[in-house]
């Protein structure tokens, strides 16, 4: 039996009927065609599927689409505003925070969550925040530098305001 859901994804509201067993990541990718959110392990380990759900970073392979009813979701597609990269995206660009890019959308969401809660993280805090996001390529060093770059940018922007 399908259940009706209404979700706002990257500012746009969608209404659909879904089977209760449909996972949020499958809904985002297969129904809304937002394939920026990746699927890796499907068992809550790798973090490739991380999205913002009502302001909290969650692994969308472990949330039912039906549980997101009424929620506001931000996926990687919603990070850039009018073609201008989010500071964390810019950090990944400037500091080479990616190679194959598979982990990147999840890494960016997890990093953005960290900077929201802690605008001035230490290196150890950055590494701890992305503990649940696995990267097979970079060795993490450039990801950490990308987040440090973003932190500086965001502080600069806050000072300029």
């Amino acid at each position, binding site marked *: *039996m399908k259940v009706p859901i209404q979700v706002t994804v990257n500012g746009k509201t969608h209404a659909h009927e879904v089977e*209760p067993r449909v996972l949020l990541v499958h809904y985002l990718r297969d129904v809304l065609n937002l394939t920026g959110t990746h699927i890796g392990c499907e068992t809550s380990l790798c973090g490739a599927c991380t999205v913002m759900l009502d302001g*909290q970073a969650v692994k969308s392979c472990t949330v039912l689409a039906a549980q997101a009813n009424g929620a506001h979701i931000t996926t990687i597609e919603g990070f850039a505003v009018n073609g201008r990269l989010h500071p964390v995206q810019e950090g990944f660009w400037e500091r080479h925070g990616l190679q194959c890019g598979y982990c990147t959308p999840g890494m960016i969401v*997890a990093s953005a969550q960290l900077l929201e809660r802690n605008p001035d993280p230490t290196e150890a805090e950055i590494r701890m925040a992305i503990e649940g*996001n696995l990267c097979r390529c970079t060795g993490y060093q450039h990801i950490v530098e990308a987040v440090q770059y973003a932190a500086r940018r965001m502080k600069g922007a806050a000072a300029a305001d």
Partner: protein
Amino acid sequence: MSLPSFKLLRPRNVEDALGFLHRYEKEGVQICAGGTDLLPSMKQRLFSPAYVMDIRGIEELTHIRVVPGLGVELGSLVKLSAIEDSGFIATHYPVLREAVMTVASPILRNMGTLGGNLCLDTRCLWYNQSLQWRKSCGYCIKKDGDLCHVAPGGKVCWAVFSGDSAAALLCLHAEIEIASPKGRRRIPLADLYTNIGDDRMRLGKSEILTRIFLPEASAGYSGVYRKLRLRGSIDYPLAGVAVAIRKKGKIIDDARVAITGVNPAPRLVKDATHALIGREMNEHAAMVVGELAARVAKPLTTSLLTPEYRREMIKVFAKQSASRATPSGPSIRD
């Protein structure tokens, strides 16, 4: 990996939840809180319930409340990240924060609840596997089969309780509230667990864990939690030790030690309390604590690490934690 089909129930309060559990008891209802343990297990077909009851909409169970004179009341749906962020818990019940901070990874702590962490399914190398994997090995006692690969010939299941916060909460002498169709009852957390791998909790099919209470008398104990895991960043404990100590001057006034990740239930090491009260902490006392903790640990080959190593690490962690736990400041009334 897809989930099996089920019907979804979404109660808004405890009474509705109990009503659903009662009404659909025969068909089978599985409670889903954060889902971080349950949903991966459903993908592996360890659970294929007719109904999944998502209890996250029960607002009354999402709060941390300080009750002056009594202690702290935590709803079972309090997220682990909320405990991590609570300055009050950090100050007065540091051992709980230490344990919670080691659960999974930050994003899973945004999703996982304290209640789910306490009701966590027990784990075993032969159980937490895909359907095909388990089928090819002839299944096991815990799910779909009748043999035990861990203790061949055995008739009991040794799957291990693998939650971190329970050890800390045992040290704090936490109590829990269980809601059932007959009303609510309050029991010590220790009484929730059976120490049987495939029947882990004394929780009826139509009951829910609703609240966790930290007594005020346990506030202000210094605390340490240490665990052994495969990958430092994300894995379940394969041996975990929590220690909470209160001193008067140099003398230990009270001490509690609990272990997890090595038995089908988290366990208090009661002898450690007797061994420490009235003494000063020194190398010898810490060593005795290590020995006593290791005596309670009964690990078997339920994981990729050997039982000998896990038992030894219980000893090492208990010893180190006992010496590291030093008084941590103000009492709850300050």
